[in-house]
């Protein structure tokens, strides 16, 4: 049996900043996931990308044209606020999706970030769609669509389904596809300009922590948990992260205690990170925390409790007191760098 209408996948390319690399990567994630679920004989999938930025970026559009996208809608919103507001993006995207004839056979994917999740939720509510939430996979059924998502604080993974769409989800980063499909010949690029008028008094800004590097894009993340026992330990983690060209994160108890800002929380209810290496210091390893770490990431756990659950998930477990281990590690890295510099 074949479906009455071909399903369409819509990738929402949105980010905190107009970061062309991050936007294109989400388009690739959506394509990888779509291609993984669509049989090869079915031909190129119908994937549309809607990209929202403050300024038109020809290089971004050029990189999107190299992907297997049928249509690219580049929406420029010069008056988008900074920091970007999910409400503004949702308002722009609601109009754009309506113009693209959003229908009951469309699966709309936002990136799995706090911003993407909020925008996907707002759009699902506004468009009368199905809110699947944060998803790891999606696919189409006859009829309907399904998605894989974690529930019960990351302790279980479930396939959920809905017969009618449009469906909305925030898709987590996908493993790169081995065989990259070529660009779609004659792909359409549409340029739109939009505006989101706002009351200047609605949001006032206070200076924040501009020096912290975001965890989502770092190649190494050094995270601390309850076992750090205070903010002083995080200063040491910051030193380690700097040497590893990484970012500092924290578990929910560390955020609760005020040792690290909520924007750097890793876990089911925080950021999802997929760095090359994740260093967990003084973190017990609850399923809720581990749910925020990509499956391809190598985890190093440092904990003085040899029975800590984190060791079950770690590629390398080190039973040690961080007070001793982390300064020794910093000293060893510094010594190695000095020796390396001296030998050149």
């Amino acid at each position: 049996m074949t479906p009455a209408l071909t399903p369409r996948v819509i990738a929402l390319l949105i980010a905190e900043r107009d970061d062309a690399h991050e936007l294109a990567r989400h388009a690739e994630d959506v394509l990888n996931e779509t291609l993984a679920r669509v049989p090869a004989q079915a031909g190129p999938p119908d994937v549309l990308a809607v990209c929202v930025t403050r300024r038109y970026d020809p290089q971004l559009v050029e990189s999107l044209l190299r992907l297997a996208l049928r249509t690219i809608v580049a929406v420029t919103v010069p008056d988008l606020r900074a920091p970007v507001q999910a409400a503004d993006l949702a308002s722009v995207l609601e109009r754009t999706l309506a113009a693209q004839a959003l229908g009951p056979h469309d699966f709309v994917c936002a990136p799995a970030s706090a911003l993407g999740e909020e925008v996907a939720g707002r759009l699902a509510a506004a468009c009368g769609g199905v809110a699947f939430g944060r998803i790891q996979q999606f696919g189409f059924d006859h009829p309907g669509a399904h998605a894989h998502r974690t529930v019960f604080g990351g302790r279980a993974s479930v396939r959920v389904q809905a017969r009618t769409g449009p469906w909305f989800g925030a898709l987590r980063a996908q493993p790169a596809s081995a065989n990259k499909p070529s660009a779609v010949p004659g792909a359409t690029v549409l340029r739109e300009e939009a505006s989101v008028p706002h009351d200047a008094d609605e949001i006032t800004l206070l200076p924040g922590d501009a020096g912290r590097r975001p965890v989502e894009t770092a190649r190494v993340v050094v995270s601390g948990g309850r076992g750090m026992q205070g903010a002083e330990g995080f200063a040491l983690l910051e030193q380690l992260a700097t040497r590893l060209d990484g970012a500092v994160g924290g578990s929910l108890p560390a955020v609760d205690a005020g040792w690290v800002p909520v924007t750097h929380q890793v876990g089911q209810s925080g950021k999802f990170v997929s760095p090359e290496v994740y260093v967990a210091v003084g973190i017990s390893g609850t399923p809720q925390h581990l749910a925020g770490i990509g499956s391809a990431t190598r985890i190093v756990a440092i904990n003085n409790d040899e029975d800590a659950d984190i060791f079950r998930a770690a590629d390398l477990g080190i039973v040690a007191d961080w007070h001793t281990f982390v300064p020794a590690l910093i000293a060893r890295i510094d010594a190695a760098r000095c020796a390396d510099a001296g030998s050149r």
Partner: protein
Amino acid sequence: MKICALLGGILDPKWPLPPHDYLQRPELLDGIARKLSPFDEVALEVALQLRETVPSSTLAVYMPDGPGAEGLMRAVAAHKPDQIGLLAIDQAVRWDVAAFARQAAVGLRGADAGTLWLTGREFGDLDDGAFGACLSRAADASLIAMAEELRVDAQGTLRALRTRTDVTEQVRVPHACVVTLTNARSNRLRHPLMKNVMLAKKLAIDRVACKSNGDSDDTAAARVAPAQLLAAAEANRTRAAPLPASAGLDAQLNAFLELLCTASPT
């Protein structure tokens, strides 16, 4: 000002989930203890703080009814809200946040719970953030997501504080608004007084209907259903035994640096 905290409740994460398929047999979960999620606690604490700040304000707290909900609501009642109740939401819609939010909104409106609704950034065990958006839509209210505090500024305007990557935002809270709260140092839930804990044990708790007569079947029906339990989420991560302290600090440091060199050569 009427403040309403809507709490979800979760299965106690310290209890293991049953090994059998609880999607098909949800009653298998009934025996597991319930507790407030970290975000429920935040919503309750921020609501309590706001009641203390704004003279003549009242606080109502609601939670979906279900197994263990009454006991959990008694724990909440020990914080002395002015009004409490359990929402009689269809169990059939619990996987569909939009349908769940529509029923919750009907219940809260029916309970005259005001127009400022506070809830955690995630609602219960099955939501990861879409509930707030759906609730605000159902309530025809604005949404402010991921706030940490609510404060009245010098001009008397209620503002929500929200941490972004490199700034803190103070967002004006409109009259009709759903605010979702996230955890921070300033909003850890206080402990109730023991005398109030004892009083709460005897309190009568109302049940609130969540379907109005005018609701069509479409409004109340769930569009999302669980199809298959795939696996325990952590099942795919089983790794080597940890390097003990007896291996020596040098061996531990070497192991760390070796992994770092192979995984991230820079």
